[in-house]
């Protein structure tokens, strides 16, 4: 059993009960940040798996928004508030849209991919901003989620949503880890290095990129649904380029080495922001910017390299001591 699980997956599985437990230990406001960070963290995860193929999506907010709005519209117009139905609708909407858009986007790389994904997300932003029925830029509110006919209230509702968010997010992370360790994951890394050779080796780069794009879209939409339900409100800001830019930034800062990096990075940056605002409400961006700059200068491989770097030095020590023992 454990043979099929790698370290990251084991770590994630162990993290799950810890994550759920902190809801009972830590104060409500931190748990709240953990919860919203998991929602946005999933989108950063979507950005990160595309980065593995050397593709930077500057419009991942599109699917974050599609997920949130699909769930919101189901609730608003059809009165559905079942979390599982809303999740399914969010996934379906993102899947259909990304499958169609994927045919276009998979043909582009580098800056063209970034700009095209940005353009598509901004089209949705423009559409939603001018749709009065959906509250225009003010957006609209979502009801409290229900679970297969069970409608908890107050504290129970909060904890239930939090627990399910944890389970879904960890589940997504494990699934994506499998994906990255699978054939397409490796093809993606090969595409990043040399796409031409990938084609000569007899596999389709287009197909791999298309599948990656769809997967990224689906996890982002899941993030969107969970985030929107936690917040109880959606607005077009979700697909604005500033939001999408943040996802890219988080992915770069956290590093693309491990699937848990964007999730952890999102939360850490969120907490840094919160304290920056508290410390200096008028110039908090300067603090946040400085932190980001320092990370980029001193940790070019992202926050996650703090963990792997330590590991390496230990390994080196081990390697150094090994021959001595042999002598």
């Amino acid at each position, binding site marked *: 059993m454990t043979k099929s699980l790698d370290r990251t997956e084991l770590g994630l599985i162990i*993290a799950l009960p810890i994550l759920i437990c902190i809801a009972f230990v830590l104060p409500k406001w931190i748990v709240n940040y953990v919860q919203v960070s998991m929602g946005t963290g999933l989108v950063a995860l979507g950005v990160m798996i595309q980065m593995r193929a050397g593709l930077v999506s500057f419009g991942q907010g599109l699917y974050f928004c599609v997920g949130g709005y699909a769930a919101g519209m189901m609730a608003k117009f059809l009165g559905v508030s079942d979390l599982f139905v809303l999740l399914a609708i969010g996934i379906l909407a993102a899947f259909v849209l990304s499958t169609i858009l994927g045919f276009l986007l998979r043909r582009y790389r580098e800056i063209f991919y970034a700009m095209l994904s940005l353009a598509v997300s901004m089209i949705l932003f423009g559409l939603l*901003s001018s749709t009065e029925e959906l509250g225009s830029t003010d957006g609209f509110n979502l009801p409290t989620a229900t679970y297969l006919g069970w409608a908890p209230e107050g504290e129970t509702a909060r904890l239930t949503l939090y627990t399910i968010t944890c389970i879904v997010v960890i589940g997504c992370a494990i699934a994506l880890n499998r994906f990255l360790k699978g054939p397409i994951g490796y093809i993606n890394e090969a595409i990043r290095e040399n796409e031409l050779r990938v084609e000569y080796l007899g596999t389709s780069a287009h197909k791999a990129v298309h599948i990656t794009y769809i997967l990224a879209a689906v996890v982002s939409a899941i993030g969107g649904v969970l985030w929107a339900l936690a917040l109880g409100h959606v607005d077009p800001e979700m697909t604005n380029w500033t939001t999408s830019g943040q996802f890219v930034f988080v992915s770069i800062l956290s590093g693309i080495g491990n699937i848990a990096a964007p999730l952890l990075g999102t939360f850490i940056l969120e907490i840094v922001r919160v304290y920056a605002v508290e410390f200096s409400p008028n110039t*908090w961006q300067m603090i946040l910017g400085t932190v980001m700059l320092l990370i980029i200068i001193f940790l070019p491989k992202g926050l996650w390299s703090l963990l792997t770097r330590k590991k390496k030095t230990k390994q080196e020590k081990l390697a150094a001591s090994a021959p001595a023992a042999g002598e």
Partner: protein
Amino acid sequence: MRKSPRTGAKMDAIFKNTTSLFAAAAIGIMGTLALPTDANAEDKKVKVGFVTFLSGGAAGPFGVPARNAAELMIQSINAGSIPAPYNTAGVGGAMIDPIFVDENSKQKNADYLKLVEKDGVDMVVGYISSGSCKAIAPEAEKAQKLTILFDCGTPQIFEEIVTDPKYTFRTGGHATMDNVAAARYLAQTGASAQNVAGINQNYAWGQDSWRDFSASIAQINKGSAVATEQFPKIYAGQYGAEISALLTSKPDVVHSSFWGGDMEAFIIQGSARGVFERSKVVLTTGETAMHRLGAQMPDGTILGARGPHGDLAPESALNTWFRKAYFDRFGTLPTYPSYKMAQALLGVKTAADKAGSTDQDAVIGALKGLEWEGPSGKVSMALANGHQAIQDTAYGTYKYDKDAGKATLVDVVRFKAECVNPPAGVNSIDWINGGFQGASCE
């Protein structure tokens, strides 16, 4: 054989790392938590969270003037230096201890909860964007924390989102009033309004403003027609095509809810091409720009200030004090966001003084249905079961005094609150379309 212990060691390292990381994070968070909780023992204080835009596009025209007013009012309230009846120090005997938070954030609700849970504020005053208010109002009810929305305009807050508010209040009138009053002003000054056009930003505020205005005009001037409705993007800055459309459709009246830089750009570009000569232009937030533009603002433009604020405020000792104190401190005259912030804080002070304490339930009880004098006149919490304020409003016509080099307003018409606001329990747009049932003007 050599490989297995090494991987084992690696595994250990990873687990140690992740667990120690979690532990470190948890300890760090707990540690920072413990710090601020036991700080308010010696003096009687009331902690107030202020949330306005401190960065982003809305900071300059709205967020910063509101924050400035908050700073001025907090200092003056704590010192007791405001003219009577506000010349006692503190609110309900307690000094205001402010915490400012930037509204420009993606996690508004989490930020709000942090104010309530971690910082332990006694109340929250804030929110300029209607989107924020929509998200925060239900959160405030859930968190059971007194929350005063001081500026945001959407009538939906108490009409659709929180229909039975307990903890949420709004001390500013909602946006319906601005546009109903604009339509009434045209009728009262005898301006021809058979053919109306609108140029509004393509987002919630612009769309709502135009909907209310065009519906009001249709009620007041039966048989009037819409010449053209233009919805350029917010922050577009260039309105060549829209101005051409306004010129060719020859409207009697042009309505615009533009604000900030967009409004100034439209005034400069539109006046150069004669829009302001051909049609009467109504700018619902125009008062904010009149002193800055001076002679560039064409005479005869109808200006509003989203309530009787700024130059439209009635003469009173409080208003004179407010304008002077604000000007002395910040070097500019207060605009309507400043007025609305001052109004909110004076409301809190009146309620707390009346209740004689800053206890949340006592303040809520006193604030419900309260009437008080702000720098821009009487405010009464008349709607939504005493949670939504109504207020008189006014419009005026711009005139540039060449000799004195001063921007002035002439033909100022005041409208009673009951004349431009729907009665309690009626939705704004239904009220307009139903022919203003129950409105009392004089």
